[in-house]
């Protein structure tokens, strides 16, 4: 297995772990953490290809990864604010119970 394949396998396994966690848990914050893991695994792919793949513009992989980390931070902030809002209504953060549109 070449280095590139090893890195991609690493990020694939991390993605699968994040997916399993997001699907299996019913606590909103744990689902958010699973989502974050999936996003992190996707960003790792960019760096893996930047390091081992042929590249025409050498800095593009790094720049994309930096932008993606920034977007992930924004998304986590908004997601956590949503979790706090939902908690204010239903006094717990169990995701299956947040299925009513009525406020």
């Amino acid at each position: 297995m070449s280095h590139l394949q090893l890195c991609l396998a690493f990020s694939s396994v991390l993605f699968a772990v994040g997916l399993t966690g997001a699907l299996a848990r019913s606590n909103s914050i744990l689902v958010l953490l699973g989502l974050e893991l999936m996003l992190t695994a996707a960003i790792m792919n960019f760096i893996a290809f930047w390091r081992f793949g042929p590249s025409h513009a050498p800095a593009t992989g790094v720049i994309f990864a930096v932008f993606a980390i920034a977007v992930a931070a924004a998304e986590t902030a908004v997601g956590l604010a949503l979790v706090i809002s939902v908690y204010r209504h239903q006094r717990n953060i169990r995701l299956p119970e947040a299925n009513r549109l009525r406020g």
Partner: protein
Amino acid sequence: MNAVLVIIALVTVGAAVVAMSGRNLLHSVLLLTVSWAGVAAFYLWAGAEFVAFAQLLVYVGAISMAVLFAVLLTRRSRDDVAAPPASRSRGIYAILSGAAVAAVLLAAVSLAPLSSAPTPPPSVTVRQLGDQLMGPHAASLLVIAALLTVALIGAVVLAAGGSPGNPEDEP
């Protein structure tokens, strides 16, 4: 080279697995922080120093704390951080889906015609990054800045609840 990557991968994936399957929410968050630090170690191994430090600063230094505050603010009693796993069947289905996705991805990775020729490590200096960010990618930079501002203002408004402030709070 391979041994270091395997160790980093084992630590990261191991911490992630224990985090996702844990019963204590806070332990899960802290183990996930270890996992993010492991990803930063992977970036360092690949030679992308700037991204590694950005990952540490953003994920370990900021996102982990936001998640910890959210955990502390959304519990009703001191011991309400237990997160029992969902029903067995749901767990089994989730593991099956995760395994299926992993199998598809790993198959794609091993069968793809990726060249395994050893490439020299690309080195991008911070100055080159800066030139690229302010040159060809300036538009993306401005869009990301606007996105971050809007997202953070929105998060503050959402979390604050929009209720009128107590006049006794003013100094």
